Every structure is written in C-alpha cells, then in structure tokens.
C-alpha cells in the first residue's frame, strides 16, 4: 500500500452545487471540490461538517462521466440530519477518496449480476455506469433491485437508461399496491431470474447487512465462485485511514482493507454478520 504523508485528517472544501430530493428522507447532493479529486467506483469519502463531525459516505457518481461528485445521503443520524439542512452554495469538507474499489477489470468478458437493496444501489451506481458505458467489454449484465415501496426506487432515470442499453432489470417491492403491479418480495427470491450463466459470472451486491449475507450465500449456493461475489460493507468510522479503530473487525480495517470484500474473504468472519 502506498504511503501518504500529507495531513490525512484535514478536509478540503467543496461547494454544494445542487440538491435533489430522491425520497422523503434521501437527498442527492452534487458537490464541486476545490481541488482535483479523482476517484474510482466503490471508494468513499469522509464528509465533514464543521462543528458537527464526519461521516463516511460512498460516492455514487462516476469519475469522468458525471460533472460533479454525487452523494446519495439518507437522513438517519446526527450528522446526516445536519447535512439535510444544507442548501446549494453551502460549503462542506471532504477527505479522501478512501478504501479499495470494485475489481471490475477481473469481470471483463464475463456475465455480471448486480443485486441492490434500498440505498445499496448508491455505491454500486458508479460501477454500473462504468460497466454500461463499456458494455462491449462484458457479456450479459443484469440488475436485481429491491425497494420497500415504488416511490423509494432510486435512480429511476438511470435504470431506464441502462434498460435501453440492454441490461436485464428486475425490480421488486415489498408488497403489491395500487401503483405497483410488478414483482413483490425480497431480492433473494429473484436471484435466479436473470438469464446469465452463474457458473462464470461476477456478482456485486450492496444493501442492508442481512440482505448482503443472504444474497452472498444464495449466489454461492447457485454455483458462483466465492471469489467472484463482491460486496461493499459499512461501519462506524472516525478517520477513514485505519487509525481510529472503530471499523476494525476480525483483523480487518473496513476503511483501508475494504469496504469492498469478496465472499471468500468474509464468509467465515464476523464482518457482515451483525
């Protein structure tokens, strides 16, 4: 791993350019960093609000494809609530990007399945974009996307665009309602629906911890190679650089050795079994 000696705890400033309401408690923030800020799919940043604190947030935009850094943030805790109070032209601090990224190079020439649950589509979106923008390098691509209710299906425009680029899309909501007559139930019930060859395919999964655990186990049970199933984990973090110890589980720092792990790396560990 490379050695970095500049001040690793000092955030650089970025300006909020646009805020889009995605659902009742999820907003998409487009931010413009003051310095050059290259990043890869799967990496995260430490988002900093002076006087409030810092939170790790995964980047949901694709470098070189989107103009600004996009962050999809759900209002759940103290800092995310404070972030939701911000408005365009406000300044925030960012540090990073931190963590490893999705090993997309390995999946070239293979089928790919993405499985997302709720907000889990956010960290996978940059990866899906970079796959769909280079579709010729991959074989069949499928997305199984689960949400609670129809209004909570995130990034509908992107999903439509991907469908036009011949991606197999399976959307599911928790139950039938007057504005939803599609699939109902959990994503794990639809894992075998996509027409791909699972034996040789790559899977990228993100969602709530229970969903990640079940999906990884099921896909492995369907004959997928355990080294081809990847997920992105979350943890309480204070530094993002492997020092503060909060995300240290089972001998791994999720911030520096993760957040992307293969099923082989974590299946016997406590990392994702909360």
């Amino acid at each position: 791993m490379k050695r970095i000696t500049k001040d690793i705890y000092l955030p650089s400033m970025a300006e909020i350019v646009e805020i889009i309401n995605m659902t009742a408690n999820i907003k998409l923030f487009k931010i413009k960093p003051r310095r050059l800020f290259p990043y890869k799919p799967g990496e995260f940043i430490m988002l900093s609000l002076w006087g409030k604190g810092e939170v790790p947030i995964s980047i949901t935009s694709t470098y070189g494809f989107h103009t600004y850094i996009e962050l999809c943030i759900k209002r759940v805790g103290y800092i995310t609530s404070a972030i939701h109070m911000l408005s365009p032209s406000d300044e925030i601090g960012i540090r990073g990007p931190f963590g490893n990224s999705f090993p997309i190079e390995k999946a070239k020439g293979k089928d790919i399945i993405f499985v997302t649950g709720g907000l889990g589509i956010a960290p996978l979106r940059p990866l899906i974009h970079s796959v769909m923008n280079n579709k010729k390098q991959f074989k069949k691509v499928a997305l199984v996307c689960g949400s609670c209710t129809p209004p909570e299906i995130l990034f509908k425009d992107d999903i439509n665009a991907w469908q036009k680029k011949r991606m197999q899309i399976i959307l599911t909501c928790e139950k039938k309602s007057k504005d939803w007559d599609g699939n109902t139930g959990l994503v794990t019930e639809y894992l075998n629906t996509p027409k791909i060859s699972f034996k040789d395919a790559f899977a990228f999964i993100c969602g709530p911890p229970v969903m990640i655990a079940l999906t990884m186990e099921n896909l492995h049970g369907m004959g997928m190679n355990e080294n081809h199933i990847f997920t992105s984990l979350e943890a309480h973090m204070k530094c993002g650089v492997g020092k503060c110890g909060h995300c240290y589980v089972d001998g791994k720092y999720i911030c520096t050795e993760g957040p992307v792990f293969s099923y082989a790396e974590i299946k016997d560990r406590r990392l994702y079994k909360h």
Partner: protein
Amino acid sequence: MKNVLIIDKNYLPYWLRQLRKTMTLIAPLRAGNEDVILNVIENIHEIELNCPASIPSPKEFLFPQKEDMFKFSAGTTDVLKDDTRRLIFGVRSCDISAIALLDRFFGEHFTDDYYMSRRKNSIFISMVCNDPDPTCFCLGLGTGPSLKSTFDIQLTDLGDRYMVETASKQGATLIKRHIYLFAQPKKSDYEDQYEILLSAQAKFEKRINLESARQKILGERISDRFWDWMSKKCFECGGCVYACPLCTCFNVLDNVESENHGTRLRVWDTCMFKGFTRMAGNIWPSEKKGTRIKQWYFHKLIYYPEHFGKFGCVGCGRCTITCPGHIDMATIAHKIDIGDRRSR
C-alpha cells in the same frame, strides 16, 4: 551503534539539569495524592525513581488523551501540531517496546502526523527494572526487564552508579555534549550488571505464556461462550484500554466555541464501550459485551501477531492493576492456557 558508559549517581541530577536547558524534562513525580505519575519536572530532586513500573504509560506524551487537531473558523483551518521537544526520563523497558510498535502502527500506510511530530521530538531515557512488580510479565515476551536495542538510552542501577547504554543517534547526542560526566565501564561493572539482570529475572512472579494462549485460540479451542462468561465480570469501564500502552483507538469530536468557530479534537476511545461500533440506523456490530471483550483479546493476541509479528501486549501488567473484575490479559491468557472454562 551501541555504546556503554558509566555515570556516578551524584552526576545524574547535573546531567539532567543540563539536558533540560534544551528540552522539557518529563519524569516520574509523586503527586499530591501519593500516586506517582509522569509529569513535567520543575525540581530535579522531585524525580521519584523508587516507584512501581506500572505508573501511567508515556503513551500520553505521544498520543494524548485529548489532542486538538485543528481550529476552524468561517471556512479557514489552522492545523495544530505539538512540536515541544521532550526528554522522557525514568520510563521502563515495556513502555519503550510498546512505543517501538506504536511507531510502526502510526507510521504505516497513512502516516499520522500528529503522533509523528511528537515522536520525532521525544527522547527517552529508560530504566532497567531491578525489582519488577508482582503484576509484571514482560520477561516471557522479551519486552523487558532490560532491552538489547530499540531504546535511546538505557540505565541500569548498579548501586552507586548507573550503566548507561546508548542505542540511537538521538541518544548519543545527549551524551556527547556531556561526555566529561561519564567513565568507561570496567569489568566489575559488567559483572554487577549481569548479576542484577539475573536477580531481576528471578524476581518475576507471573509466568504468562501468550504464545500458548494464541495457539489454543487459533486451534479453535475457545468458544464464544468463554467470552460471554468473562464478560459477566466486565464493568465496561474501559480502564484496560486507557491503561494499555498499545491501545490507540480514538474518537473525533468538534468543540464549538461560537458559530462557525471551534476546534476539532481527538480523544481516546475504547472498544469496550457499547456505542463504539454503533451506526446511525441502529446497525450494531458489537452490541454484546462478550463480542467486545473477544475483539480486544483477539486484537492483541491474534491480529497484532498476524500484522506486526509481535503481540499487542508488552506484559506491563497495567490492566491487571486496573481491571475491577479481574479479567485482565494475564488472567485471561492463563485461563485459556490451562483450559479453565469456568466463569469464576
């Protein structure tokens, strides 16, 4: 590099007084309430070398309990870094061994400049333990009672004089400027030193075999029930973590002084606390007390050796003294080693 000299005990205060002219002197000091702590020394005669090895570790001078990182005010930030030159005198071999490991931890991958800035400006004069405490078990770990290298300057008490060993460039400069105070060692000095080391080694009461405990854990002989049993005696006070010279977890907080003005600081944190891993949305990886205790012991007994090739314990025995529930490193490692699965 290693260099051996002798200094008469009467010259030691003079030497320290000279050294103090260029840096802050920190040494064991008997505080008002009779506890001995490491503190800034005003009068050289107040230095209390006749104290247990388990006084609070010098970790706080490299990684303070509370450290200001930067000031922020309306979009501008000021990085605060401590560059006080410190001479830390009278610490023990176990602490020097711990610092050698901390250097690797804070220095690898992303370098922690706050620690490094303090470290760069600190010199240590350590003491060989002639009389280890009943709680000490550094002998089996090779982290004491005396060291062969990794120290700056090491003193061995030979009665009326000290043997002064130097193993670093920084240490050598402290001697070079005052070389007239030192004498060359005679054969009898080496003989005395050898005797003192032998007697010190014989005085150890605790013989803890961490390697054997590690092997038992790796052999999956310890179930999660063991940790749950142990956790019944845990008060979740965090004392073991705060006292440990190798525990480095911290929390980052913002101290707001007025609107848009304040300080970002870090404070020691402990994995023994319930909220340590709790995320917003109530996702809680280590909610159970047993899980947290297991994590602490696994970090020190399994993950440290995996990553650094050394145990995350230097046998200083501070957790043994601190823990009100008697579930400290020595006790737990011993229980694992002899196969004691009882909860009491």
